[in-house]
């Protein structure tokens, strides 16, 4: 009776409590326009935003922030919020992915669109047809500022003739920052920066002092810092193929090409291009090879000429090298491996070293005062372009760009009537326009001018604000670079924008660049890795596999799919028949409604949360699921894509490895522990409590605690404990989670550790239930310990072991265990088990259909085991163990 009152009381409390919580949205017409973190909404706002907020007192600008994901999955929070219809109003991600998934709201109502004149009438060409060129031209736009955006950026933000984004303000460039003092000290002239790779590497080596640990250059594994290097080869990461209408040949152009002329002279700019990822091309490989050369190539310093000399493997073996007709003999100690440092700390920490023990660092900067607060004086800082691969390639500067879009969820906000909604959309558009407007940074620029720093600023800004007179004072090196940009002597590129670049660049970094720069990078085969990556990029990561390719496999796939469906159906029928075997007599059937009422919550719940998702999942596997709008059916495409994807087999293999390791360790440990605990005559409870400790906290804490212990630096707990041992062999601290050889064991160990105690309880109870008489009888028969275990103990606990084994097998197969928090599938794809891959496909890459297809494949692999599990379940009775 008491229990019931407690429950009623609890319900009442609950109801009261939830009702008492103040609802923040109820205060009239307060609009909160949210923007993702690329724009800092929490700082003091610039004039242009303050004006807006003053004019609209009911509008607030808020920072949108979702749940923080582990670094590798950081894009998931935005994707998930978008899928949940609670996305930000103004956001930034891959434009084309956002458009394809219909996450971005087109800006047509403010900017206009291709083929429609500004006054709303269709634009016709001479033949009287719609004049479409894929771009919004000056007579088509309704927005005066549209044509002020750089042509390249207009091209970036326009998809299928509609504008979806605005480029963020700020003219920052990714270039190579350098310290003028350090360069001059080494006798190098910043007025004549290196123009080729060879000249550049000479500079880097002249500035490098391995003894004093001062570096000429440091590199990070970030893709945005690597992308310009690809442009220096004259190629690009994404290319477009256009079939010439005259000669019929396919010509390849760079992603950011502006002129399209076939070698035969025909203009192919009207031809619809096919885009593809090009990272394994000889040019793009050469850029990676240059990173490799910087990081690993051996060289010596010639003492007589004070020139660095690069060595071949042959030279190193010989112990001498021919240089300028002279034979230079060197000892192995003279050889320096690599010429650069690798950034492992935060960028700002590295940057603080610029001018002290670091001379050059590739990074973005808007002007030379950018890093003044980090202690880098503006008069010492310069920026030079990335050198061309050889003298025929132009040096490169990369305009660093981000683009803001309006989220599709604006359609749900603002009110109930279309007018209110439109008014809200207009507010959001106005806000975004202001956020992206170059005027947002004018206050800063003026402050710098007032502080006498005009000469360190970007001339474009000065001209825009009408402060041209300051250009005279500009240091010659700075002025030269800006002039070269304007004169087109430098190749000005942006980060790739076709395909899902933001998604691709994570992979680029994780699977290639990082692995070149890592301490283990010397043996890394980047050629193969690039080929694999290009293949993956063109089959999903960056561009979808073309439909024709899929169609080619369709007949074969249908046959296989039919077999699998039969197989599944067979087991399903088997399961159901097996479960229904018991005959039921119709006599004495209860006729009242009460039992049905009692069953209702459970049955309805299982139908809704068990069966409906299953059915929907089945449908989704054959669709191309879109978060917004209709999802087209694509037949077996998802399954064909998966079958053609070598990564799938890798995931499968990794999953098997994970399961085997896990079962080997996690399944046996509790059994052994239970045996041990049964056998000790004293302190049983004490030990039991000890092993039970991990249960008294949560899995989250256990995992993160272990992550902290695995820290790869010398300060990590495990490395500290092992320090005496490692020291004995002169070994470096182990990067437990970053090393492909150790990582699999490391992601499994925490769960083994945590589950041993709780898992052993049930075996302890089982062991206790073995009848004592049996042992006594065996003793009298003179059976050995092992014999007793084999003939008495094991048979008694066998059903329990079997049930647990099957359950553990099925569970482990589907789980991603601690991988989500520990490695997120890394390093590379080393620990990417199925569960993790599904999570990533669904919530990071937003390919829900593909993820569901993966899940179904996983399910069909497991169905045999599940059948077994259910069979066993029906054969046993569960009884409460005799407690102590």
């Amino acid at each position, binding site marked *: 009776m008491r229990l019931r009152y407690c429950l009623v009381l609890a319900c009442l409390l609950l109801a009261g409590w939830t009702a008492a919580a103040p609802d923040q949205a109820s205060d009239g017409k307060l609009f909160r326009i949210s923007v993702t973190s690329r724009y800092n909404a929490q700082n003091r706002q610039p004039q242009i935003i303050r004006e807006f907020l003053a004019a609209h007192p009911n509008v607030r600008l808020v920072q949108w922030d979702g749940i923080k994901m582990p670094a590798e999955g950081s894009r998931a929070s935005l994707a998930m919020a978008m899928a949940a219809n609670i996305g930000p109003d103004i956001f930034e991600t891959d434009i084309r992915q956002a458009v394809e998934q219909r996450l971005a709201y087109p800006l047509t109502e403010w900017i206009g669109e291709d083929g429609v004149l500004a006054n709303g009438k269709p634009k016709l060409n001479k033949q009287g047809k719609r004049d479409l060129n894929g771009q919004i031209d000056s007579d088509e736009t309704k927005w005066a500022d549209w044509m002020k955006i750089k042509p390249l950026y207009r091209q970036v933000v326009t998809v299928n003739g509609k504008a979806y984004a605005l480029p963020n303000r700020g003219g920052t460039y990714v270039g190579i920052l350098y310290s003028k003092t350090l360069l001059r000290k080494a006798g190098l002239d910043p007025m004549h920066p290196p123009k080729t790779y060879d000249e550049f590497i000479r500079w880097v080596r002249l500035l490098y002092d391995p003894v004093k640990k001062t570096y000429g250059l440091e590199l990070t594994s970030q893709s945005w810092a690597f992308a310009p290097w690809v442009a220096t080869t004259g190629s690009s990461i994404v290319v477009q193929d256009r079939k010439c209408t005259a000669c019929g040949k396919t010509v390849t152009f760079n992603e950011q090409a502006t002129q399209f002329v076939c070698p035969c002279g025909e203009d192919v700019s009207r031809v619809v291009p096919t885009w593809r990822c090009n990272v394994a091309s000889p040019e793009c490989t050469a850029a990676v090879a240059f990173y490799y050369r910087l990081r690993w190539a051996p060289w010596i310093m010639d003492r007589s000429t004070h020139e660095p000399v690069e060595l071949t493997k042959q030279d190193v073996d010989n112990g001498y090298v021919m240089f300028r007709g002279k034979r230079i003999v060197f000892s192995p100690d003279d050889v320096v491996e690599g010429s650069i440092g690798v950034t492992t700390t935060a960028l700002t920490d590295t940057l603080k070293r610029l001018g002290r023990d670091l001379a050059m660092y590739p990074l973005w900067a808007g002007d030379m005062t950018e890093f003044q607060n980090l202690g880098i004086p503006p008069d010492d800082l310069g920026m030079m372009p990335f050198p061309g691969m050889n003298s025929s390639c132009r040096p490169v500067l990369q305009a660093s760009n981000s683009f803001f879009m309006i989220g599709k969820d604006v359609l749900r906000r603002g009110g109930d009537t279309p007018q209110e909604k439109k008014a809200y959309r207009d507010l959001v558009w106005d806000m975004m326009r202001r956020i992206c407007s170059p005027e947002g940074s004018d206050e800063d620029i003026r402050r710098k001018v007032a502080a006498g720093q005009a000469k360190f600023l970007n001339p474009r800004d000065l001209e825009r604000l009408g402060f041209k007179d300051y250009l005279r004072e500009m240091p010659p090196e700075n002025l030269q670079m800006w002039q070269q940009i304007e004169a087109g002597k430098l190749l000005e590129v942006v980060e790739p924008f076709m395909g899902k670049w933001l998604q691709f660049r994570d992979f680029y970094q994780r699977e290639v660049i990082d692995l070149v720069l890592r301490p283990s990078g010397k043996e890394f085969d980047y050629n193969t890795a690039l080929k694999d990556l290009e293949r993956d990029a063109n089959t999903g990561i960056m561009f979808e596999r073309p439909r024709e390719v899929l169609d080619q496999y369709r007949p074969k796939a249908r046959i296989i799919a039919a077999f699998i469906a039969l197989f599944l159906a067979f087991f399903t029928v088997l399961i159901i028949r097996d479960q229904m075997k018991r005959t039921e007599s119709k006599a004495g059937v209860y006729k009242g409604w009460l039992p049905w009422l009692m069953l209702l919550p459970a049955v309805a719940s299982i139908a809704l949360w068990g069966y409906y998702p299953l059915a929907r999942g089945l449908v989704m596997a054959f669709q191309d699921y879109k978060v917004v709008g209709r999802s087209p059916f694509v037949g077996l495409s998802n399954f064909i894509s998966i079958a053609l994807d070598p990564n799938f087999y890798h995931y499968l293999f990794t999953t098997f490895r994970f399961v085997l390791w896990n079962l080997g360790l996690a399944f046996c440990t509790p059994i052994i522990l239970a045996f041990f605990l049964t056998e000790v005559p004293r302190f049983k409870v004490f030990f039991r409590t000890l092993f039970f400790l991990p249960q008294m*906290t949560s899995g989250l804490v256990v995992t993160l605690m272990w992550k902290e212990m695995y820290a790869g630096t010398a300060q990590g707990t495990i490395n500290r404990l092992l320090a005496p041992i490692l020291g004995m062999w002169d070994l470096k601290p182990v990067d437990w989670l970053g090393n492909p050889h150790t990582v699999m064991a490391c992601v499994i160990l925490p769960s083994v550790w945590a589950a041993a105690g709780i898992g052993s309880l049930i075996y302890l109870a089982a062991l206790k239930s073995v009848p004592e008489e049996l042992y006594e009888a065996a003793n009298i028969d003179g059976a050995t310990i092992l014999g007793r275990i084999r003939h008495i103990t094991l048979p008694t606990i066998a059903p329990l072991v079997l049930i647990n084994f099957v359950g553990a097998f099925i569970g482990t197969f589907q789980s991603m265990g601690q991988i989500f928090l520990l490695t997120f599938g890394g390093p590379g794809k080393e620990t990417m088990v199925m569960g993790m891959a599904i999570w990533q496909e669904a919530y990071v890459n937003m390919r829900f259909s593909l993820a569901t297809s993966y899940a179904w494949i996983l399910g069909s692999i497991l169905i045999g085991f599940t059948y077994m599990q259910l069979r066993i379940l029906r054969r*046993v009775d569960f009884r409460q163990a005799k407690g102590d």
Partner: protein
Amino acid sequence: MPIISDIDRKSAKGRAVTVWIYVSLILGGITMVYPFLVMLTGSVSNGFDYDRRDPLPRYVWAREDRFMHMLCGYFPPAHRASLRQLRQYFPDLPEEWSIWSQIGDDTKASDQWAGKQLARLKDPAQRQCLETAAKDYADFMADWDVTETILAYDNRYIAPFLRSRYGTLDKLNRAWQMSIDDFAKVNASEWSGEPIDQASYTPERDVRYSDLLEFRKAYRQNQFTPYLKDGGATAGYLRPAALRFIWEDYVAKQDEKLKSADLAALPFPVPVDAAPEMLARWHGFLLTEFPMRHIEISVQGRQQLFQQFLQDRFPTVDYLNRVLAGTGQAWTPVSRWEDIKLTATVPDGPLGRVWMDFVRTEVSVGQWQIRDTLPEQAFQKFALKRYGSVEAISAAYGLKLASLQALGIPFGQALLTTFGHKEWAFFADNLGGNYVAVIDYLLHRGLAVRNTIILVLLAIFITLTVNPLAAYALSRFRLRASEKIIVFCLATMAFPAAVAAIPGFLLLRDLGMLNTFAALVLPGAANGMTIFLLKGFFDSLPKELYEAASIDGAPEVTVFWRISLPLVKPILAVGMLNAFIAAYNGWEWAIIVAQDPKIWTIAVWTYQFSQTLTGAPYMVMASFIVNSIPVLLVFLFCQKIILRGIILPQMK
């Protein structure tokens, strides 16, 4: 029953086996406990000793560590050049110490240095001098201008301070011209480390800044640190913005032979009658590195020159107005160059940097005056007034001052005596500080505690109703479709959870249930396996009970509540326990279906802590411990329930 019988144990082999088992268990036990000890120690550490990863906090028994721990609180790693500033108060601080964790790593060296300092406290004569200096410091600090101070503050006091000052977020946002949605998110990082050492820094006197000054005053009154209120605690977390260290660094860069003792004896500021080389060096320093806000010039006859300078910088008056008005700082447009008057000290507002450049280029450095806003100079005057002569000051403080200008701010002395008086208050603060911060955060951000309680209650309620009701119905009544229903419930198990998870998420969205408690509990409410198990237990209850009850005319509900449920109590109790644990600890599903901080539970916050607070791992460790306490308590009290609730399968 043990397999090894008593007889076996007497044989050598049996004994060996037993010993081997004990050894294995002890080793295993150590691996169980060790990580927890490291975590526990981590949670009571700070930037000084976190990276040691010791299993026990050494400062509990080592006084030297307690002292270093306290210093780390006054000069936290995150603040600008904090260790360099510490060295200006303790000149014998090893120069190679540049980060706190490195000091903590070298126990021997840090013990040695701290021991040396603490020895000064023990010696009665030295103690007397220390107390005198500390007392003077306190008197000086009591009415020192708060603009020239540095604050080693604790982040967690900002939110309550601003809340009490502004009341609502809207008022704060309007005043600060920003838009944040939570007091705790106010980014006031500049409050800890204004670039007071930079030559051209002047504070921007806006609302934000005046709030900062109020915050500092509150700190000076020990509003946030009551344990420093009295009893000889002279060193508060607010200290004068002493600048001696930039001068020392400047000299050291020019003359690499000088040792830190020589540097400590340098005059600062250098008096006008100093030796010519020293004066030349001083002037070089003033021109390049010394903060211009401490400089005063005579305006006599310089107005014309200033106008000329302005014209050079801003070719026209229009330029000038456009530049200065557009900086976001207050500026009244002028129509003639003459309207801008040269001031003796740096003017507020956008003209400040122009003034500095003018003084640097147009006013001979010999004519610059150092203002009394420089803490060192002010303190020197203060001490001279109190003691009358340099010799008297030397005697009182136990120093050997070559000149008045060699006297620095005695903050080091104040720190030492404060430690002497308040050692155990700091100890308690170290032990509890991280926990207080975490709990404070959980209580004030979002509704973590409320959400957790609601979720746990809901989860337990559902465990006690949905599945037991269904199982009871299936067991008690003979239904036409009993078997079919059981199969219906069990068969979903045949398909992997992952298949249903994604459509489940989409279903929740379509039902508008995302970010509600329903999303967290409903999808897992009914479970075929549990129904099946419970049905087995209900089946094993004697049928006579039901018959007797129905003969007595008891309604079904009563039978269920009062007869059946109590009989399967152990199983239900374990179910409740598991439901509690799952609801309390769950975060994986929550981060997918409940991204709104308004309904985050403690577990989700803990996850969020671990992902965002990477700079303060000791806080993360404390949050882990706080997160674990409820589970720990439940387990301690419910051990019996767990043991009684174990169920074993037996072949039929």
